[in-house]
């Protein structure tokens, strides 16, 4: 694998390999000096066209623990603002001699375009509504910490699937590992076509909750109520929010997940986010080890890993 653009680049075997490697890096992260020399001498550039302190910090921590050198290409202060084309920007960065580009962009497909123009490895850290593969990998890892396997698990993904890169990557990863995925959303927040998606679809959250092993809540952006996709956030919460009352429908061992940042009181009630069923902070913690595994898989030679 040269790049990580989509969950599809990995397939079921590739996902399993990342999750196995993640186990070793969780162990590394627990050491008193959580650092291995695996990527010493490698240079990774963060190319974030869209603000995401959380994702960037997670990648940055992962790279530091692998002893890689990192550079931040700050989009706001660069020539991007001067009308330079995307390709010019990327080729300028590559000319500095780098090994990987970790790309976040508000437009779907940008990591694909960049991978056509450079020799360096490209990691998709989120492209528009399209994909966010490392999030899906850390979600799989987090579920596996609670359950042995995803195979046969019933996972409900609830909310704004249409605009969600997390949902697209999660559907690919969860179903690759054998889970049964149900999308729960108002029709205005579903993609216009689900042809080829191996999922069930409903708008009735109450019917889904009692049978769900995992409830994955997507972030609800406030703009959606101004685009006539919803009458109001209040109505969204009433019908599709995981309120305290609704959470009572969940099985005792059901897992509640969220990619963050949460809108407490909109898609998830504050008390529900703090239930023992919620693994939201574990998701964040696992993000670092999963991203170490991905960077190692793309850039490591295989010899340096001291586990």
């Amino acid at each position, binding site marked *: 694998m040269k790049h990580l653009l989509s969950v599809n680049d990995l397939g079921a075997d590739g996902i399993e390999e990342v999750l196995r490697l993640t186990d070793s890096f969780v162990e590394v992260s627990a050491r008193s000096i959580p650092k291995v020399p695996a990527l010493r001498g490698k240079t990774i550039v963060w190319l974030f066209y869209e603000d995401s302190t959380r994702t960037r910090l997670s990648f940055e921590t992962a790279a530091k623990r692998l002893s890689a050198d990192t550079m931040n290409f700050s989009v706001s202060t660069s020539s991007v603002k001067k009308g330079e*084309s*995307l*390709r*010019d920007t990327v080729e300028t960065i590559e000319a500095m001699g780098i090994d990987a580009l970790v790309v976040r*962009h508000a*437009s*779907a*497909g*940008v990591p*694909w*375009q960049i991978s*056509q123009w450079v020799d360096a490895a490209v990691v998709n850290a989120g*492209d*528009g*509504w*399209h*994909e966010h593969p490392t999030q899906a990998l850390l979600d799989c890892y987090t579920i596996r910490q609670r359950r042995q396997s995803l195979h046969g698990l019933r996972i409900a993904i609830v909310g704004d699937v249409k605009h969600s*890169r997390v949902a*697209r990557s999660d559907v690919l990863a969860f179903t690759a590992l054998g889970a049964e995925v149900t999308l729960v959303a108002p029709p205005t927040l579903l*993609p*216009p*076509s*689900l*042809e*080829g*998606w191996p999922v069930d679809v409903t708008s009735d959250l109450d019917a889904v909750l009692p049978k769900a092993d995992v409830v994955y809540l997507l972030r609800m952006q406030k703009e959606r109520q101004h685009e006539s996709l919803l009458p109001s956030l209040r109505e969204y919460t009433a019908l599709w929010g995981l309120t305290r009352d609704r959470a009572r429908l969940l099985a005792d061992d059901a897992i509640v997940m969220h990619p963050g940042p949460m809108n407490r009181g909109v898609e998830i009630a504050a008390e529900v986010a703090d239930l023992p069923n919620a693994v939201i902070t574990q998701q964040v913690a696992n993000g670092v080890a999963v991203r170490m595994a991905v960077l190692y898989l793309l850039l490591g030679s295989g010899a340096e890993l001291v586990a």
Partner: protein
Amino acid sequence: MSPSQPFAIDSAYVIKGGTVVDATGSRQADVLVKKGRIAAVDKALDHKHVIDAAGCIVAPGLVDLHTHLREPGREEAETVESGSRAAALGGYTAVVAMPNTEPALDNAAAVRQVLDLGATALCDVRVAGAITVGRRGEQLAPLGEMAALGVRLFTDDGNGVQDSRLMRRALEYAGALGVTLAQHCEDEALASGGHMNEGAWSSRLGVPGIPAEAEELMVLRDIALSRLTGTPVHFLHLSTAGSVAMVGAAKAQGLRVTAEAAPHHFTLTDAECAGYDTVFKVNPPLRGEADVAAVRAALADGTIDAIATDHAPHALEAKEQPFDQAPPGMLGLETALALGLTELGLDHQRLLALLSWQPARIAGISGEHGGPIVEGASANLTVIDPAATWVVEPEHLASRSRNTPYAGRKLTGKVRHTILRGEPVVLDAEAQR
């Protein structure tokens, strides 16, 4: 044999050994050209100057109803000269230049500027005027003043006229001038924010889509307005099965509607967008397989009257942007005929009807282009080798831009010679100036 030197415009020569195909039929004949006109069409004509057409079709020059020449305003992408060279190499003797230049061609002075540039071009350059001032869809442009300069087609192409009342008024006014309004069919509210066809691919790729209905709503509306006003409407670049069906039904009712389709809408689907290559971004967008099949069927059965290129050059740096920021459009002039020959499986006369005499009629230039190849007619001709195979190489195109979606594709059928008012502007697939 091949000619070794360019011909002077008033010299005479014979186009020898070809099969003449025009609206009247098909026959083996040589064509003698003198002083810009056809002097004789007969078997075994001789002259000291010979243009070889052995094994070739000799046809009326092709006519493109939909060419973006980009001048004035975007000369880095195309000029009248470079676009006309691409046209001549593609077998065209006339193109209709779209008015969405910067500034828009919405008045007589702007039209005259492009007509003047076209006077020395490698094909006849006609102009479509804008329907509304600045193509803003708010106020009627001076259609009469532009019609006085010979403008026969008007459109706000790039945008559809959104305001139904304004479109009605424009049709009524155009009726008195005897000109045709052409519509870029797109309901902007429904299409808003979209960058590719809405469907399975857009949903998977996370790219906002443009539903087929955004086009179909305006086709439906303009059929109704054509009925209301009794004035003809020409539908630009139809791309959906629903649009085609409505136009077929309107024609069956005797309404005066005509329609064109672009080569990319009968050869490519939205699956091409899977790699986010912006060369496949176009408006209307590449649609699904059923739409492509419907467009092909409509070209075969006459529902669609013309193949029009929607030749839309864009500079490389403009296309090297994220998919949702890159401008829509693709080149078309140098590949349209070959795509028709390679993909459509129509007999040559039927295909040439779609590329030459039917669009000439819609453009209002039948007197000069697309007419039967007979003594006395203007010598606007194209000589096509229907069996020649070639591979599309972007770097070898005459257009200033490189945004062809067919790079590397092997095509059958190549333009050998193009004759403009008697002047061989293309000989053996080489532009002569």
